[in-house]
């Protein structure tokens, strides 16, 4: 091998960079985020799996429908329960603790929703 002095360190650097996630001290991997579910309600506005992947789309639809199309604030779940199509007055009514609900997953997946740029953040429990 010619030029060891430069090539070997470069290869080590390459391997090091490529395997960063392996030697990076990731926390307890088995510890999944567990968003705190509301105690008083068992049914959400849409099926759980849909809410997991697409709640942000739903919020967007509400916004567009209500603010731009003059749509209704009233929604109904599959079982007929009425709810308010609103982040603050609807979602947060059940999921009242942003930290224990929203943030657990958002931090885990590095998602920074800009909901709270406009909406008032719910007061954290003292």
């Amino acid at each position: 091998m010619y030029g060891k002095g430069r090539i070997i360190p470069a290869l080590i650097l390459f391997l090091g960079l490529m395997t960063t996630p392996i030697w990076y001290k990731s926390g307890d991997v088995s510890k999944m985020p567990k968003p705190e579910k509301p105690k008083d309600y068992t049914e959400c506005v849409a099926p759980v799996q849909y809410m997991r992947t697409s709640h942000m789309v739903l919020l967007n639809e509400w916004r567009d429908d209500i603010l731009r199309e003059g749509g209704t604030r009233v929604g109904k779940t599959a079982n007929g329960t009425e709810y308010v199509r609103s982040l603050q007055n609807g979602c947060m009514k059940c999921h009242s603790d942003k930290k224990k609900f929203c943030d657990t997953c958002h931090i885990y997946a590095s998602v920074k929703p800009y909901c709270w740029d406009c909406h008032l953040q719910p007061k954290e429990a003292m």
Partner: protein
Amino acid sequence: MRIMSPLIAVLALVLLALVAAQGPGGQALVGIILPYLAFAVFLGGVVSRVVNWSSSPVPFRIPTTCGQANSLPWIKQNKLDCPSTKAGVIGRMLLEVLLFRSLFRNTKAEMHEGPKLVYGSSKFLWLFALLFHYCFLVIILRHLRLFMDPIPSFVAALEFGDGFMQIGLPVFYQTDAIFLGALAFLFLRRVMLTNIRYISLPADYFPLFLIMGIAITGILMRYFLRVDVVAIKQLTLGLATLSPPAITGQIGTIFFVHIFLVCALLIYFPFSKLMHLAGVFMSPTRNMINNSRMVRHINPWNDPKIKPHSYASYEDEFREFMVGADIPVEKELPAQPAEEDAAKVAE
């Protein structure tokens, strides 16, 4: 054929992934076993290719000088394009690797009536190549959010910056669009420019299609088909920490297509032109100091047995003529007996 066969190959890979993702066994194969295998092939392949390259010496110092050399002190040297020091070469390499210096020089030649050759500036290849590579880098770095916990702040910052226009939910990343645009440019350029179409091989289209496939499945996954990111991160973080979880079935099929194509790219990488990633650092015309008259460069296989035609044999062949023409010689001509006699008589 050159375009269709690699396209078919990539579509076949997609199909294969779709089929595999149908059952839990297939999901484990594509989601756990294949990524490890691909990553190992990628790392091993790249390292062994580089080691293979470096097993050959660089016998001669052959930088391509692209500017004024270090010469007389009052002549201004172009220290980056014609470096005479290590620092200069580092500068040259940084320009090359980070900014694609050489590609920036690109021109386009046209033949006009006359004949008259005209050279126009042609920076689009440079621009789109740069966009493609930097977007690719940003996208890869963004993906670190799925492989690290807690997420390093630079990854978060990168993501925030990439989505700063706050279009749509989930937030739209500019790099996704630029990346696809650049890929489309690189593809269309290959197809539409006669020269480039003519030199292009299936091996040029295949990685383009493969990377397009990766980008499209990624975009589908994020914006259209949407998957459970938390479930995916559980898997990817498990992969990264060498403790993959059991796949629970909450992950959408599209994810398996995406990761399958990524694995295909990783496996393909070391055996293909994509090795330019490492090669760009090792090209002797770029990474050598132009100091061959200042510092002796050693060729390990220099053959000392190759000697020039010796002066002695040259003189032996031409001595008579040389003496006749008053050219100095090492050995005089053998004395002529007749002349010797004459000289004696003269004495």
